[in-house]
């Protein structure tokens, strides 16, 4: 076991996969000699050289397009879009090209492409560096969408993503970059499409994604002191969603809260609520609660973000209300 930060876990995953398979490439802004805008590719340029680790211009559309074309010709590219907020510049390549190529051509092409990106919720950088836009890609068939909440999950999911034959959107949480966890030294592979029960409980099912998982666990501690045991489920994969694990939990708890940094309308909370309703309606004692920031852009500054985003205290309050 070695203690790793979320950031180093990502680097390890890429390094291991690049060493394992020389078809793996890394492309993006500042990913090369600079080691990544957030340090998440440190050392890779030195190890694998400029052919396989390439700095791109600030050209988001072609960054993804390079990945699509390279994947169609036998490579396994990892491309980086620095912030998920920039997806509006490259969503055509993601949603119309990468996502649809296998389908369109009747399975004649594979699309082993990983699109790494970062969400900077809670960093106070303002409206263009704060959006958790998993809904945009979760709505697109052909894509897989992954949001790791711990270093080990990040490593295991990224390695699985790189080996996947389908395009995977890999969403890193900048506010988690320094989080530490012990990770076993051998191969770590976490399956895409499988939720993780981060803490078992019996009273309320709390589904939380990415950065919100830690808050849900903190809320669980507070509530446990009151004798309330929430079950914290981290879906880890947004699409395809492991609804079975969630339903099994709801069958036990009869109550659910979904905590997200993504906004409510058309958000992950709505999707989970709709699916719980569809498959577990008669297990529910109360409506599924969506805990999410209000429907506004994110202004500059931590003060606003603390106000807007779910916190452990807000989760505690929501659980208490749901049980009242």
């Amino acid at each position, binding site marked *: 076991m070695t203690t790793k930060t979320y950031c180093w876990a990502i680097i390890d995953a890429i390094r291991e996969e690049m060493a394992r398979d020389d078809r793996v490439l890394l492309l993006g802004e500042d990913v090369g000699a600079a080691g990544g805008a957030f340090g998440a590719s440190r050392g890779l340029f030195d190890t694998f050289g400029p052919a396989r680790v*390439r700095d791109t211009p600030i050209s988001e559309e072609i960054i993804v397009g390079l990945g699509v074309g390279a994947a169609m010709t036998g490579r396994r590219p990892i491309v980086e879009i620095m912030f998920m907020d920039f997806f509006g510049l490259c969503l055509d390549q993601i949603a119309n090209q990468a996502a649809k190529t296998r389908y369109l051509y009747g399975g004649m092409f594979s699309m082993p492409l990983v699109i790494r990106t970062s969400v900077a919720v809670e960093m106070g950088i303002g409206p263009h560096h704060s959006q958790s836009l998993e809904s945009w890609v979760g709505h697109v068939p052909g894509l897989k969408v992954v949001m790791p909440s711990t270093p080990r999950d990040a490593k295991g999911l990224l390695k699985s993503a790189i080996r996947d034959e389908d395009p995977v959107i890999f969403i890193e949480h900048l506010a988690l970059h320094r989080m530490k966890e012990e990770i076993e030294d051998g191969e770590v592979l976490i399956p895409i499409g499988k939720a993780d029960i981060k803490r078992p409980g019996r009273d309320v099912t709390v589904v939380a994604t990415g950065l919100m998982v830690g808050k849900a666990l903190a809320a669980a501690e507070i509530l446990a002191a009151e004798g309330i045991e929430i079950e914290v489920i981290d879906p880890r994969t947004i699409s395809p969603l492991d609804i079975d694990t969630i339903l099994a939990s709801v069958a036990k708890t009869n109550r659910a809260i979904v905590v997200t940094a993504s906004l409510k309308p058309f958000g992950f909370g709505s999707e989970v609520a709709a699916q719980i309703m569809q498959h577990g309606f008669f297990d529910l004692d109360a409506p599924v609660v969506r805990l999410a920031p209000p429907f506004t852009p994110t202004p500059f500054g931590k003060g606003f973000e603390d106000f807007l985003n779910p916190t452990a205290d807000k989760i505690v309050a929501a659980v208490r209300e749901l049980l009242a």
Partner: protein
Amino acid sequence: MYDAPLDLYARMMLIRACETQLNDVFARNLFPGYIHSYLGQEACAVGVCSLLGDGDKVVSTHRGRGHYLAKGMALRPMMAEMFGRASGICGGRAGEMHAADPAIGVLGGNGIVGAGLPIGAGAALGMQLDGAGAVAVAFFGEGASNNGAFAETLNVAAAWRLPLLLVCENNLYAEMTPFADTVAQPRVAARAAGYGLPGETVDGNDVFAVRDATARALARARAGDGPTLLELETYRWGGHFEGDPKKYRSRDEEAAWKARCPVARLRAVLLAGSDADAARLDAIDAAAEAGVAEAIRFALDSPLPEPERALDHVYAA
């Protein structure tokens, strides 16, 4: 790869016959959807693709049949794909704007104007990493050259010296809008210099001119000297799609361009040279017509895909 003038002629005639007969089919209401005709641009596809091997990749557009046939896609499955039949090369699900064939390096058409350019660069990156001297060719229209994707592609291809041919078929119109109305500088090739790659404009209705320019660009690409932007001046005989009343241009202009017919020009050259007599060429024409007619019959006789097939291939099995 095919070099013999008669082979070039045969391939151009195949495209010509295909486009002509599809228009007839369309006029008889037997075609499902839009036809984006390649009529008039045959020398472009054939000039470029005749110099490519199966290992070389081609990225096409919404107006792709010329590229598919010139690159060697088998006629029947290509045709059946256009009609959305189960016997189509993609099972009839890709349709008129989208056929592909990885076996011969056709990476597909595109319904999004300009979107093939970044993908072409990605394929060229694949070829560069393979290191086997193969290239990628991205075809696109002059209308696409106004899209941001074009500029990003020129820049990255040049910066990385990718083995990429950027082939612009400048047929003067993007849908109903004349290219000249949307630009201050109408020479597409002139945009290359700003990004540090060579750009060349050639007569896209002269298959030999297209081949010469392509050969130069291929030599550069295969030698590791990077991409070239080729602008092929040509004309779309039909409307944007069949049925378009073409109000945006004059019948005189159309006649002038038809007088520069790429197929007729090649035929004249062949007849003037010693290669072939009229009978030989007529036989080629007849074979093309017959082959296309047979392929259309094949397509029309093929069943539609079972609708449930729509559920396949969303993800890898």
